[in-house]
């Protein structure tokens, strides 16, 4: 964790450094461009002066030269003697004016030259100055030919000078142009550089972040699955423990209940004795119910499917639900009158309704309304719809989508196993039904369960069986049971009902009994879990010796499931411990009657 953070922060720092460097470079280039702009501006100014300024000065020069030539051409000026002509030129205001104008222009040119310190015009400018002196001298001395000659020389120097300025202007323009182009391309390069750096940094940072997020998500998922596995292991261990304890308790309870029953039968009219024994029996029955619950928690029970009226079933649970949800929640139960029968395990249905009611209660800590309704529905197939609706906090979509996941719970750690809804789902699916949850945060939760209608008529529901007369008989019963107390209870109880009772503590002695009592055993009552050969295997062997004998298995342990399933295949009924004597006696009678 820390390693990854260190790595990523190093990478980020590196990129931030790069970005900073790019920004500094960009700033430097922009400052540089500012100065370049200054240089370009100056060069442009110089170019303009070379081009326009010097052109104007050259034109002035040319015009003044022409004026002097005009002066020289004036016939009057040179009509007289040389001296007169010289006087005329010298005394003429024009000649002096023009010459002084020429020297003014020359001074301007020299100033222009000084201003830019450009060495390339020095020689030409000197030549112009020298030739102007020659012109001046010739004019002042009145030497007409020399003056003309000097002026043509001056003209040449000026034309050269002018062209030279044009060349310089060309160069300056080209320089400003190339500098501007360079500056522009540099600026473009910097813009591209900055943009590319930004893009790269942005992309890499984003990728890095998303990959880090992915890694974090994966780690979270791993932690969650580890957590889930941990919880599962805990539950498994707990289930194992609870199953073992329940098994032991069931054996003990069978003995307690059996003995209490036997003594109740023998109590005669002694009310004090029978009152105490009834209390013992009630306490034993309550303890038996408790162990059943413990077993239900530890492992799913084999399906005890019956055809029932759902309305009746709910009527049976209503009191329990009401007690569980408390007084703050108002419970409404609405059941349709002509409800179709459905096939299900009433015990499991109880689990479903209690689970849903518990969830509803937890969703309404401040109280509210819980509605349980049933109705027939025709949607492709005929079915019965059970709705459990609460006015609680509801669920968001993320929670809703995971609601059926095993071990997914919104309840605080330690409260709730996260198994409730998944168990419900499993039960409903096993019963070929469908379950749907509608919920939105703040607007309650609506659970809808669809169960297929059964064509068979409903059985009467007897969660608490009515007290029955213990039915007796005179046939021979072999009891194979490793628990001494239960064996003793059965020998006493069944013997009391008139049966001839043989007992065996394990399979081996049981088989010996079978061999000894050739074809004389009518019923074999056998425990499923025994040391060595188990009940199912024992029955297979015993039936070879006693093919006529009916068989009944007894079980007090969740792990007997497999054995009891194979017992079901063998068409052997299973009695779950703890049982009361008359239950077993009735079953024995049934089996005897059938055979």
């Amino acid at each position: 964790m820390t390693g990854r953070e260190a790595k990523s922060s190093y990478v980020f720092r590196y990129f931030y450094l790069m970005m900073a460097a790019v920004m500094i470079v960009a700033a430097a280039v922009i400052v540089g461009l500012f100065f370049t702009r200054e240089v370009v501006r100056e060069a442009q100014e110089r170019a303009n002066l070379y081009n326009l300024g010097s052109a104007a000065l050259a034109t002035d020069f040319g015009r003044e030269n022409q004026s002097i030539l005009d002066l020289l051409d004036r016939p009057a000026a040179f009509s007289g003697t040389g001296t007169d002509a010289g006087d005329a030129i010298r005394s003429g205001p024009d000649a002096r004016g023009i010459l002084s104008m020429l020297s003014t222009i020359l001074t301007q040119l020299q100033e222009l030259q000084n201003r830019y310190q450009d060495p390339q015009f020095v020689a030409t400018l000197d030549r112009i100055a020298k030739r102007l002196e020659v012109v001046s001298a010739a004019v002042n001395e009145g030497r007409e030919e020399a003056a003309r000659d000097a002026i043509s020389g001056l003209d040449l120097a000026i034309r050269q000078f002018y062209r030279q300025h044009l060349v310089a202007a060309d160069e300056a323009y080209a320089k400003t142009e190339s500098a501007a182009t360079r500056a522009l391309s540099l600026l473009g390069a910097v813009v591209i550089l900055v943009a590319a750096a930004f893009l790269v940094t942005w992309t890499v940072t984003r990728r890095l972040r998303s990959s880090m997020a992915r890694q974090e998500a994966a780690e979270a998922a791993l932690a969650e699955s580890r957590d889930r596995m941990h919880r599962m292991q805990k539950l498994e261990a707990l289930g194992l423990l609870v199953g073992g304890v329940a098994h032991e308790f069931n054996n003990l309870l069978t003995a307690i209940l059996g003995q209490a029953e036997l003594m109740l039968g023998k109590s005669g009219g002694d009310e004090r004795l029978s009152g105490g024994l009834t209390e013992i029996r009630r306490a034993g029955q309550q303890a038996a119910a408790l162990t059943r619950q413990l077993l239900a928690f530890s492992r799913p029970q084999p399906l005890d499917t019956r055809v029932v009226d759902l309305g009746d079933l709910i009527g049976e649970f209503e009191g329990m639900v009401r007690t569980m949800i408390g007084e703050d929640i108002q419970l409404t139960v609405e059941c349709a009158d002509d409800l179709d029968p459905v096939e299900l395990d009433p015990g499991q249905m109880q689990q479903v309704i209690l689970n849903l009611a518990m969830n509803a209660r937890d969703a309404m800590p401040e109280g509210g309304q819980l509605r349980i309704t049933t109705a027939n529905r025709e949607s492709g197939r005929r079915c019965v719809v059970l709705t459990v609706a609460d006015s609680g906090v509801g669920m968001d979509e993320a929670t809703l989508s995971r609601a059926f996941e095993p071990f997914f719970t919104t309840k605080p750690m330690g409260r709730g196993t996260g198994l409730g809804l998944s168990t419900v789902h499993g039960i409903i699916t096993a019963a070929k039904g469908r379950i749907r949850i509608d919920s939105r945060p703040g607007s309650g939760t609506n659970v809808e369960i669809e169960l297929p209608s059964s064509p068979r008529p409903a059985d009467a529901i007897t969660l608490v069986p009515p007290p029955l007369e213990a039915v007796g008989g005179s046939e021979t019963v072999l009891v194979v049971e490793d628990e001494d107390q239960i064996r003793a209870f059965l020998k006493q109880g069944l013997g009391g009902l008139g049966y001839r009772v043989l007992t065996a503590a394990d399979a081996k002695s049981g088989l010996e009994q079978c061999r000894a009592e050739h074809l004389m055993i009518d019923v074999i009552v056998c425990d499923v879990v025994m040391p060595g050969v188990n009940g199912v295997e024992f029955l297979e062997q015993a039936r070879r010796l006693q093919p006529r004998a009916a068989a009944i298995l007894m079980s007090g342990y969740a792990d007997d499931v497999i054995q009891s399933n194979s017992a079901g295949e063998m068409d052997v009924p299973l009695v779950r411990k703890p049982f009361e004597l008359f239950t077993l006696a009735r079953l024995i009678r049934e089996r005897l009657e059938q055979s």
Partner: protein
Amino acid sequence: MKANLMDYRNRARTGPLWSLITVVVLSATILACGDGFENGKPGLIRIGVLPDQSRQSLISEYSPLIRYLIETTSLDIELVIPDGYQQLLDDFHSGRLDMANFGGLTFTQAESRSGAEPLIMRDVDLRFTSCFITRSSSDRRSVSQFEGRDFAFGPRLSTSGHLMPRHFLTKAGIDPERFFSSVHYSAGHDETTFWVRDGRVALGVTNCVILGSLFAARQVTENDVRIVETTPAYPNYVWAVQESMRPSVKILLRDAFLALDARNPEHRSLLQHLGAGEYMPARRGDFEDVRIAAATQSSLEASDRK
């Protein structure tokens, strides 16, 4: 191994710094370059000339100029006579020549290939012209009136006999191959003139200087041929230098040419020897027409070869 890793890390960390320094130095160099004006005596200056005459006559024509330049500039200067036009261009391109006297077309080639910089040219070089001529008996007064007639250029590779006349015709909207009924190329400017005189073509174009010399030699008379039109002036010869030449040396050489003054007797004989009245600074812009004409010509030749 550990030390290597450390080195690598250090390098990676200083990477941005180095790139920053590099870019700053680079931009400073770019901004600063080109303004240097070095001092100190340059090495030998080698000057090449266009080999349009025999070696001996070239040496005798240019030797006085070289002597004058050495005297005036105090530079070490050497005259180089190449074996041909291509040799001149190659030597200039490879840097074996510091300065060269090019024709109009060869200058534009040297300019595009090696960045030759025009320095100085004769007054006559600035105003070269070509003359469109016809028989004196013809009553047509302009080239545009010769539509559908026979026409003759000078040699294909001649600047004044073909390149520039074609350029100015095209500029005036005349495509010779479409405008005239037939277009011929002569072997020389004199031949073009004779073709016109003999009536083999109705119109021809020739070097005005050579035409003048033909008139002077009475090989043709005003009764035979008459000038119909003259092309605008175009530059034809130029002294060019390497662009990389020191500015101080460029100025020295140019000023030496500019200082030539016909009123100075020594200078006058040198100028006459070189066929110049005076020298003028040369501009790149002077060669715009030649450049366009050369580009058109080369693209035409390229399409002809296809």
